């Protein structure tokens, strides 16, 4: 199971690129805002390019769908495990923070299905 920890040094941080023949199934998300300067509003996003279909001949490149949102107070820590079990990411897994904060750390672990 791959995982990676990153500081939220920009508002959008990429955690995993798309694996073409699989979905990304997040298994753990840790938001460490112990030293954060404000509450962290964290959004787990799914970024992908849909296929050409019968209904859409020119699909939008970089379609973004928010899969989960959580808020962690400054001085707080949140660990999400089993609550992620129904979250699926079709393309690139990335995390959005409402206000950039390099003291806020996010760890994402995932499986492929």
């Amino acid at each position, binding site marked *: 199971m791959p995982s990676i920890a990153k500081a939220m040094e920009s508002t959008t941080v990429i955690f995993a690129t798309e694996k*073409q*023949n*699989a*979905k990304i199934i997040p298994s753990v998300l840790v938001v460490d805002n112990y030293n954060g300067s404000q509450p962290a509003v964290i959004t787990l996003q799914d970024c*992908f*390019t*849909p*296929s*050409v*279909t*019968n*209904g*859409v001949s020119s699909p939008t490149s970089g*379609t973004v*769908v928010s899969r989960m949102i959580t808020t962690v107070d400054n001085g707080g820590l949140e660990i999400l495990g089993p609550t992620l079990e129904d979250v699926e990411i*079709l*393309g690139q897994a990335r995390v959005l923070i409402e206000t950039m904060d390099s003291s806020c750390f996010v760890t994402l672990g995932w499986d492929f*299905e």
Partner: protein
Amino acid sequence: MIQLLPMPEATVTPGVPKYLQEGNFVTFTDRWPDTLSWVKGKSFVIEKTNQVPYDLHYIIPTNDFKDVDLSNSSDGEKMYPTNTKTLYQVGVGFKPADMLCDLFIPAGEYCQRLEYASMVPTLSSNTLRYLGAFNSTDTPYGDARLFFYFVYRLEPLIMRLYVDYGIDYEKIVAGFLVNQCYMRQVLLTPEQAAQSDVIRYYTELRW
């Protein structure tokens, strides 16, 4: 030409391979057309095999579909043989997804339908959408139960991959295993004929 293997009710030891093996016999019925004269009504022994896995993937929005042509046509997936002595036995399974798969051969003609005139797969119908459609539990990825048999210049087989309601987008991953079989024509003894796999033309699915 199209075969869905049901779940087994019992197991045997040693197991029976799903895919054609070297030394197996295949027989094409007389219903194959004259335009495919290299197989029509003929029997073959499989002399060599080579298995080639291949995945195709699509991200499709809800209540939409994509037609995937498996033939060698210009916008097809080029999964047909280019040699009259080659048979492709293709197993396909799907990763878990909220999807349906209808089959057409040739384009526009449903493979899975009932005899009554209106009983054809219809994606705009809340009930007929599910008629004749395979889903990812019918033929799971890595345990394919849906098989196609492709020969040189066979008409295009179309897989219509549909994403059902209840989800914004879905990723459909179709896992193929192409069992490339090199055939040599033979005259079968009655014993060999009894062991031979019969490959029927798609028109024999409709009688």
